[in-house]
């Protein structure tokens, strides 16, 4: 009986001394802090629901996004008997199905483009920060140079030149969104480079690539995750902006931006077609922003 607390104590002591546990506790701490943030948790749940609905939902609905209800080629108000839970657009296509499908496109573009930006930005930032010297100078001058360019214009020119194509949309957006990521990662890497554990890794014969992959990247992960959650909404906005200009995905495929643009055209007669996708999109953007703020507080507590 009396032994148990002592045993528990030694267990705790061992746990505290074991390096693996000390490394993990940062994430556990962060997770606990995040869970305490009600806005962030609510955002996470709503995002999961929207994502789930967008990717699974269309298979569960009676109508598909491009199917025209030939008996009702008009903007129909919500009608449960016909299976149009949020009504139809002016061509008789189910609004809920289209909104969910649009969500799938918008979210995919947002996530894929962010990963393109992530891959470029983290590589450039880590390499520039870790190798330093001429490489750093060269890469960062290049980033500075691109910063001075109104890149949205370039995305538009690319869309005009190469046509409207789903793959190109996220590649082009990703290719312009990596700059800030590169700067942030470089800054973090610069401070990490001087740390003892990097010196130890180098002394034990680790190659540059190995050190970057094994020691630098895991340590910049926190900042990167925060920035990813803040980049995804920006990409969704940029995509919807392209759609607004008529340069997004092609009809009958759709995205939130396109739906909003279509809805805006019939604003006076039929505001529902604007409001439904607008609510979905703004909710998503809100949630990503709240989640990003929450993650920043959780992962980088020294600021607060």
């Amino acid at each position: 009986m009396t032994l148990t607390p002592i045993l528990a104590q030694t267990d705790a002591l061992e746990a505290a001394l074991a390096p693996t546990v000390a490394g993990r506790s940062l994430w556990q701490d962060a997770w606990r802090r995040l869970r305490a943030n009600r806005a962030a948790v609510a955002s996470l749940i709503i995002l999961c629901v929207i994502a789930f609905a967008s990717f699974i939902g269309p298979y569960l609905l009676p109508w598909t996004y491009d199917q025209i209800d030939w008996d009702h080629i008009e903007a129909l108000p919500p009608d449960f008997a016909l299976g149009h839970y949020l009504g139809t657009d002016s061509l008789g296509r189910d609004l809920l199905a289209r909104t969910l499908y649009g969500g799938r496109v918008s979210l995919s573009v947002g996530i894929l483009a962010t990963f393109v930006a992530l891959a470029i930005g983290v590589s450039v930032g880590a390499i520039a920060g870790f190798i330093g010297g001429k490489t750093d100078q060269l890469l960062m001058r290049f980033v500075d140079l691109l910063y001075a360019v109104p890149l949205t214009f370039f995305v538009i020119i690319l869309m005009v030149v190469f046509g409207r194509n789903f793959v190109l949309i996220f590649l082009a957006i990703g290719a312009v969104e990596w700059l800030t990521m590169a700067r942030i990662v470089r800054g973090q890497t610069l401070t990490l480079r001087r740390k003892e554990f990097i010196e130890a890794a180098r002394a034990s014969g680790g190659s540059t690539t190995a050190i970057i992959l094994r020691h630098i990247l895991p340590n910049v992960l926190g900042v990167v995750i925060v920035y990813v959650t803040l980049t995804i909404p920006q990409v969704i906005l940029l995509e919807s902006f392209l759609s607004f200009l008529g340069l997004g995905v092609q009809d009958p495929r759709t995205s939130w931006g396109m739906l909003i643009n279509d809805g805006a055209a019939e604003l006076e007669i039929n505001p529902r077609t604007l409001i439904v996708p607008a609510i979905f999109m703004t909710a998503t953007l809100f949630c990503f922003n709240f989640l990003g703020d929450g993650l920043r507080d959780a992962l980088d507590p020294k600021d607060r």
Partner: protein
Amino acid sequence: MWSYFIRRIVIGIPTLWAIITVCFFLMRLTPGGPFDSEAPVPPEILTNLRASYHLDDPLWQQYFSYLGNLLHGDFGPSFKYRDFTVTELIAQGFPVSLQNGAAALVLAVVIGVFLGIVAALAQNTRRDYAVSAIAMTGIVIPNFIMGHLLILIFGLWLKDSIFQLPAGGWEDGAFANRILPVVCLALPYVAYIARIARGSMIEALHANYIRTARAKGLPFRTVVLRHALTSAMMPVVTFLGPATAFILTGSMVVETIFQIPGIGRYFVQGALNRDYTLVMGVTILSAALVIFMNIVVDMIYSVLDPHVRYDEAAS
């Protein structure tokens, strides 16, 4: 300090040249041209058209003559607006966009900084959260939704009331026609600036020199407005450089929605019509403007903050 800025300007020129070059070759490599239309033009006329726009010359020759003309401020003829040169179109559209953009920026700075101060002075109270909520809304709702909402409210619902505002058009810059576009353009920046100003103001209010100023017995107002605000303004000023670029992008949306004849709308129409010269002209102008604004912002920065010295080798 001056040598730094001269260097910045000198670096700006090759940047601009790179942009021009990339743009030029991208646009020329495009499949499909400005003369593709629903009703095909007879081949003889097409040949004449291509000849008159020098589209049959070797690419490098077109490139150098374009660069040469650019030095004289000549952006070439517009492919779509046949009677106009791009320079003329820009001369028409640019002042309109510039006025709207400047008005929006001033509005955004005034309101944004005010909201930021209000929130910072009442940190973690209901007032602070209200400002944060407004800021988040402004950032999250894209301006093409906001524009349509404003039209819906002020153009349709409030029609026949004293708050009625024109839903679009320009009318040679009548005041009433400017209100909605400028507000729509300014809202996101109000939000960003309020956020930035709140953060930097909170930081400034915790600084030691503020405590000193208070301890000297200076009135609270003076301390906030003169001492804290000066240093709290710096992140706001830094934001103004990129903000110019955003305003340019924003003007594409706002000018399209409200049908304002500015360069943003010209750019959008040029892009959709494959009007190469117009698109390039607007892009080059915007790039030059953004580069210039970034330099100006750095200058203001060095005036505001005596710590910033550009003499040392810029890292």
